[in-house]
């Protein structure tokens, strides 16, 4: 079996044992989405207005919470050292790890977003727009969060970097994601935000793992 595939399978297996983290993301998503109708009331106009930010926010939180642990346990038990010392491309291995996290934490979110969106009275093509937005955004966020996690691994590179990385990098995603949803619900041409999201997604997948792998090497020194 190809080594990258093997690592991917291993990580999926581990994630399955860590199913609790996956579930957290989903619960987080549901919690954030529920709290508004619960406290403000389920006025349709209102709900449609806030669904954009609610979806994006949930996606961010879910990925933050379920990805916090992407490297830390491996760092503590020493298997990150082993990963670094292998003769395979660390970038590739990191990419596999990220992909497996994406598969086990983002994909469920996308599925759940369908239900949430329907309780927010979103239907038809707008629903599809919501799903695609969540997919694109959460994929990007997975990469950004992985980078932030790697940078904050070592104690000598603490939270400041997390702020510098996560906050400014995810804000555009949140804003354009919300816009994408809003436009498609309201019926304005939403291709602009979608192009942006797709671009960011590709960018994050190409540069994210490299930066993350580098950050891991630094934190092991």
């Amino acid at each position, binding site marked *: 079996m190809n080594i990258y595939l093997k690592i991917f399978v*291993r990580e999926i297996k*581990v994630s399955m044992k860590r199913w609790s983290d996956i579930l957290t993301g989903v619960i987080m998503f549901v919690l954030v989405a529920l709290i508004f109708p619960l406290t403000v009331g389920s006025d349709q106009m209102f709900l449609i207005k806030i669904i954009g930010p609610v979806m994006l926010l949930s996606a961010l939180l879910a990925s933050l919470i379920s990805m916090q642990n992407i490297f830390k346990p491996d760092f503590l038990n*020493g298997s990150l050292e082993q990963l670094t010392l292998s003769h395979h491309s660390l970038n590739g291995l990191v990419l596999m790890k990220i992909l497996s996290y994406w598969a086990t934490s983002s994909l469920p979110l996308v599925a759940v977003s369908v239900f949430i969106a329907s309780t927010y009275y979103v239907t038809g093509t707008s629903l599809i727009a919501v799903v695609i937005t969540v997919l694109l955004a959460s994929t990007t966020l997975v990469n950004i969060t992985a980078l932030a996690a790697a940078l904050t691994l070592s104690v000598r590179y603490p939270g400041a970097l997390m702020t510098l990385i996560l906050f400014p990098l995810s804000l555009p995603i949140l804003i354009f994601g919300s816009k994408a949803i809003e436009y498609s619900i309201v019926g304005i041409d939403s291709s602009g935000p979608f192009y942006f999201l797709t671009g960011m997604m590709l960018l994050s997948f190409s540069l994210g793992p490299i930066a993350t792998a580098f950050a891991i090497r630094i934190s092991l020194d």
Partner: protein
Amino acid sequence: MNRNLLQVESLELYREDHLIFSDISFQIESGDHLVIRGQNGSGKTSLIRTICGLTQADKGKVLWNEASIDESLFNYYEQLSYLGHKNGLIPELTLDENLNYGLDQTDKDGKDQVINGFRLTDLKHSLIQNLSNGESRKTALSRVVSSKKPLWVLDEPYANLDSDSISYLNNCIGDHINTGGIVITSTNRDDSIATKTTELLIGS
């Protein structure tokens, strides 16, 4: 196995203005077992991590087959199997899964033989998190022993092992250097190690 050569040239390392070691040079080749001996805090772990390229030395360099490891990291790592103070095992997976999903080529028979040698066969399907201290250490050692890589770097492999396991480990190391491997271990005791060894004393 090809003949291999590891050269270390006047390494020097500082940590926060504190000199850990300086001017360390040695050269070992296929068939050698180098024991790094020193008291607690003398810098054994730091040296080993530098040799493995995990830590950047402030001065000096490490050469593998006459090429600086910084320049041919992949070639080097293709030949290196390392075990630090931490075991590098995933606690949620079983012993067997940890060995199978490791990063090295697996050879089922060889692996089973090592597991058996360390008397871990019964625990093959136990989760690592349920193993005792020594048992997980032995699992990590099995990974190195069955890796088929020429260069083994082991940081205090003997601590926490019982005497049977120590002698089995010594057998493995003996076999390995007899077939042209290179082994580096560290220890802080004066206990004698079975195979013919070179010694490197560090610290005062």
